[in-house]
């Protein structure tokens, strides 16, 4: 590996929580006037990990990212990079680079000049600038476009340039603010794979902001689910999918059905459609109002009432959609509750709308959460 390599070999070793690319967020609060964008966040970002901040718009994820980048300062709390506080340090003095949502490429410079901008600010020798720009453009497969005007590139190409412009500086941490929101779906899926590969190759800490749960799950080592300026859950994609901490996380990841009911003994939930059984009883006290959550893909659809099964509910098929890899059924239960079920396509005939069906699910696929709005839908 040459001296000029963008790929830094130093990042991998050392204590991940205090390594060169680690970020520690301690009790950070940010207010805009009377509204609180970030309401007390503690988070450890490990050196070299791909971390996603996931949440609906207005959850504070972009504000948190901008505070790490230095574009906003926290009202309370501290942000540490590699163990030392960066609060009050201007963005140009932080070893952190950002890929902006609208890319923010300089329109009066060529692609190569855009990528060279950060190196020129550090007064890097010209020969080294050329070599590193060339290497960074090669990494994102944009070498051919070095002398083009960025305004004349497609969205995907502009994004690659923005990525090259950031990684050429060998940042300790790379911040990505919904960089794929302007791309079409196919391109987005390709870029997700490439971005993940690039992150592994470079070993840089990536902090990726998105509102798209599929995007977060496809790339991240860990996902931070945020709501109303607070962290709901931190974990791997699998942890968040299988063990959501709150009904919000459960609803945000995947297609989730919520059935309101009253918690009974031994994990049973009494609902309008009968008693449901859950394996994990949740934390609520017996008699409290709860939401039982079942994923659409955990529901099995039967044309006749299955023998000896638990959690069997009868209903009527509404809209049936063939989605390619799955078939989605909209079902109305006997009590009028609407559920979504997704099953693998079988060779059998699809039930048509209006047909009475039976559907069931295993107790281990039921999660029970306290009902945040107890009066609604019970």
């Amino acid at each position: 590996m040459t001296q000029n390599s963008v790929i830094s070999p130093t990042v991998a070793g050392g204590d991940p929580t205090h390594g060169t690319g680690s970020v520690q967020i301690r009790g950070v609060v940010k207010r805009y006037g009377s509204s609180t964008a970030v309401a007390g966040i503690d988070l450890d970002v490990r050196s070299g990990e791909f971390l996603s901040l996931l949440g609906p718009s207005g959850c504070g994820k972009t504000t948190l990212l901008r505070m790490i980048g230095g574009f906003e300062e926290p009202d309370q709390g501290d942000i540490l990079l590699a163990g030392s506080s960066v609060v009050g340090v201007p963005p140009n003095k932080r070893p952190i680079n950002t890929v902006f949502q609208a890319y923010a490429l300089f329109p009066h410079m060529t692609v190569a000049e855009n990528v060279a901008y950060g190196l020129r600010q550090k007064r890097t020798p010209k020969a080294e600038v050329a070599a590193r720009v060339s290497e960074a453009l090669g990494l994102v497969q944009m070498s051919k476009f070095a002398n083009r005007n960025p305004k004349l590139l497609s969205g995907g190409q502009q994004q690659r340039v923005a990525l090259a412009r950031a990684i050429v500086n060998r940042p300790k941490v790379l911040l990505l603010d919904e960089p794929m929101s302007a791309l079409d779906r196919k391109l987005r899926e390709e870029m997700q794979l490439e971005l993940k590969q690039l992150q592994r190759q470079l070993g840089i800490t990536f902090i990726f902001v998105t509102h798209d749960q599929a995007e977060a799950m496809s790339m991240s080592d860990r996902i931070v689910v945020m709501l109303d300026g607070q962290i709901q859950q931190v974990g791997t994609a699998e942890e968040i999918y299988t063990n959501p901490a709150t009904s919000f996380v459960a609803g945000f990841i995947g297609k989730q059905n919520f059935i309101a009911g009253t918690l009974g003994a031994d994990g049973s939930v009494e609902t309008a459609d009968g008693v449901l059984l859950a394996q994990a009883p949740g934390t609520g006290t017996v008699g409290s109002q709860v939401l039982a959550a079942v994923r659409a893909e955990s529901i099995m659809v039967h044309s006749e009432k299955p023998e000896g099964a638990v959690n069997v509910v009868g209903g009527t098929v509404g809209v049936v959609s063939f989605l390619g890899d799955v078939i989605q059924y909209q079902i109305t239960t006997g009590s009028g509750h609407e559920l979504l079920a997704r099953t693998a396509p079988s060779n059998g005939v699809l039930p048509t709308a209006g047909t009475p069906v039976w559907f069931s699910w295993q107790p281990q696929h039921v999660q029970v959460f306290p009902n945040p709005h107890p009066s609604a839908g019970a």
Partner: protein
Amino acid sequence: MSKFSRKDVGAAALSFPSWAYLVFFFIIPVGLVLWYSFGYKPDLFTAHSNSILSFDRYIEALDPTFLSTFINTLQIAGLGTLICLLIGIPFAYWMAVKVPVKWRGLLVALVLVPFWTNFLVRTLGWQIMLAPEGFVSDALQNLGVIGGPIEILYTRAAVQLGVVYNYLPLMILPLFVSLDRAGASLREASRDLGGNRWRTMFHITLPLAAPGIISGCLLVFIPLMGDYITASVLGGAQGNMVGQLVANQFNSAQNWALGSAMAVMLMVFILLTVAIVGAIYLIIRAILRFNRRVLIEEPAS
């Protein structure tokens, strides 16, 4: 076959208001001035005749008075444009970047407030402000800031002050628009990539505002070169501007031929000045681009 298609005819008809306006209020008047400049003043009571055509009026116009007044005008206009630019850039930057969006409309309106009053009246206002026996002079003397009455009226400094006051909004508005359009994200990107405030200003903000800076300078410099009201009201003999000479030939001397020749020369000189400044700008830009370029070997395709 006709040279013009029906589409061309339709486009010409639709754009009739704009081209008719240009023809009647720009091309014909300028053509007339050009035509008159080749004529002469036949007698005391006739303003102009074109029965004999010559370049004599140009030779007559190029006398030392005209040239020294022109140099004087060029200095006032150049310095005035520069001062407007130096005041305008920070002010427009503040308006476009620092001020909350909800106050911007109000600020733009406030910048335009002087235009609610007639140009002559505004300038006359400065005569009152700057008068040695005026209230400003009295107040400053009473406060002990100055020893005697202010002696600025009817000097070149008064003209300079007057033109900066009169033309500043024409500089601020295009600067504001271009700085506003450049957007915060590019400045943030520059800061993110290690550029400090000053380097961000000189490498990103000002280059992106270049169209606004150019149009602001032209909007101030060109009318300022032809301005004669400010100089007449606030300047004495030292504050003479070439626009006054042209106006004098048309008004008091009633010599339209000489006035036209002076006007044509003024236009040519303004165009030359703008062309020279434009060339300097292009050279500076080329040098900056040359410095910024990144030489990387072409990838094997």
